[in-house]
């Protein structure tokens, strides 16, 4: 961008371009400091975006991305007749919506309730506990869970002691999605709750004092002060989540699922991973899935943002 501005400047020196050039020159060190970051995004984000063209090509290793021949929409035709792909799309949507239904409200409720606790030490302790799982990888969490929920694991042992039947948590198709959603809530609720808690803390305390003097009980204060105070951030978070509906938790599922439950838990990301690295690879086909997912996500994000602008006057983009 700098260069093109420079060249137009030399061809047609007008007053405006001179001042622009001067402004750029004055900030030359800023551009220099910005360079490493921009280089990172150019290389690791924009080159892959450029590589998306692979979705319309037949990839040949010796020709590279740009050299491979164009084949139009063949990759997509191939993809859309693959039954596994549609199963993956369905699973992604189902799991993502279950997550919104279950995992989205829990942190909000948690934040409101935590805010009502006045025993400072207790509050800080439980908050510390709630947040901890967020900082562990899904590899660790899956390890703990696979052990706990296996046929001879702690939970099934407990069920057996209490005279219930053992449950095949990890291989039962009816249970598995719920297990995924529950684990997601277990790991991330505490972390997501911090944001709401911070929003609540930033509410003017005199509002509560005034309301209390006016005779508002705790329910009134939660309903008419706390909730309006966080509703905006709730809406924004919800939009963000809706905009990434095609992400249903790849790192979680790839570490926990197994062939017995592929049918209910194979999401788009795990599908791409499997067709790319566990079959004779067809990179064009895999790239087509990536593009499909990227475009769907973008469309959903823009739609939800548009709805939000219509409803509340402000969007997030």
């Amino acid at each position, binding site marked *: *961008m*700098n260069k093109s501005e420079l060249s137009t400047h030399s061809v047609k020196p007008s007053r405006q371009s001179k001042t622009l050039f001067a402004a*750029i020159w004055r900030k030359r*060190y*800023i551009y220099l*400091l*910005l360079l*490493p*970051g921009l280089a*990172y*995004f150019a290389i*690791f*984000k924009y080159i892959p*975006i*450029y*590589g*998306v063209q*692979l979705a319309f090509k037949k990839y040949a290793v010796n020709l590279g991305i740009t050299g491979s021949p164009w084949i139009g929409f063949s990759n997509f035709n191939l993809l859309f007749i693959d039954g596994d792909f549609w199963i993956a799309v369905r699973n992604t949507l189902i799991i993502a919506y279950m997550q919104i239904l279950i995992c989205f409200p829990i942190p909000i409720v948690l934040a409101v309730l*935590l805010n*009502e*606790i*006045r025993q400072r030490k207790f509050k800080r302790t439980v908050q*510390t*506990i709630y947040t*901890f*799982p967020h*900082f*562990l*990888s899904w*590899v660790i*969490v*899956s*390890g*703990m869970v696979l052990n706990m929920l296996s046929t001879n694991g*702690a939970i099934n*042992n407990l069920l*057996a*002691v209490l005279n219930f039947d053992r449950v095949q948590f990890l291989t039962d198709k009816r249970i598995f999605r719920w297990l995924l959603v529950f684990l997601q809530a*277990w790991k991330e609720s505490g*972390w997501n709750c*911090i*944001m709401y808690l*911070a929003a609540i*803390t*930033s509410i003017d305390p005199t509002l509560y*004092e005034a309301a209390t*003097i006016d005779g508002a009980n705790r329910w009134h204060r939660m309903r008419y002060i706390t909730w309006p105070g966080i509703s905006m*951030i709730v809406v924004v978070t919800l939009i963000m989540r809706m905009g990434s509906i095609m992400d249903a938790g790849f790192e979680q599922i790839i570490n926990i699922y197994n062939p017995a439950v592929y049918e209910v838990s194979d999401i788009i990301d795990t599908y*791409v*991973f499997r067709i*790319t690295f566990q079959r004779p690879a067809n*990179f064009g086909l895999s*790239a087509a*899935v*990536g593009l499909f*997912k*990227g475009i769907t*996500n*973008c469309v959903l*994000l823009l739609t939800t943002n548009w709805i939000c602008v219509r409803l509340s006057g402000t969007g997030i983009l």
Partner: protein
Amino acid sequence: MTTLAKRNMRNQIVRNNWFDIINILFMSIFALLILYPFYNSILVSFTPQADYVKTPFMLFPKNLTLTSYQIVFESKVIFTGLGVTIIITLFGVVYNMILTVLMAYCFNNEFPGKKFFLYAVIFTMYFNGGLIPYYLLIKDMGLMDTLMSMVLPTGISIMYMTVMRKYFASLPVELEESARIDGASDLVILFRIILPLSMPMVVTFTLYYGIERWNEWWNGMLFIKTAYKQPLQLVLRGIIQSTGAQVMSSHLQEAGIVPFTDGVKMASIVITMFPVMCLYPFMQKYFVQGLAIGGVKG
């Protein structure tokens, strides 16, 4: 507010009623729910196999043993993994922080083309090339099977950069202006004035990046082919996903011990999360504030 009103209010607030009791109970149960899997893992890792098989449901251990830990520590894989993870965490955090701080500082300034660059950066949050172009890029860059393949692609987290930028913007402008009048360059202003004032943020994001690099396994799984270059989490994943006698088999065959698979797995998990567990309670303040500031201001 008058003292009388204050006293009235305090009386009303301090009294615990049924709501508080139920609330505290509920919060405690939730906390136990979070804690139990950790307790279970630690318990299993210290339990002898015989006890584990005999006891229908174990809440407290009868005998403790270090056998599982011995098996884990006597195999080399956990140490090579640890070494790799320490290297990529150190290099990664320095690399991440330099890029993030520089970009946050630049975007906190006004300059021609700022909007364009900012949008170009934010766009990548919402659209990316997907797995295959990314994989081919790393391959073409010659990063296959190198530790750099787990460092270089991590770069900048846009969210952390944005929070940092907002924090910089909240600092008093006068400091920067007066330094500029005294002839200080951008680098001097950033490192001598802005960063010292932003230490809490620097600590917070160093921790975040540190934890992310510590938890690295995905790039390793994609790009690392040589066993001794695998990061700790990937080694752990291998141990967890293996079954029965596969667990650290080569070593065990020499020693002639029947491994307690679950115990070895849980011991590996405890070892892997040990540093985070030790760090976390003391640094909790820093862990929490990044998101808190980002959430309220963003």
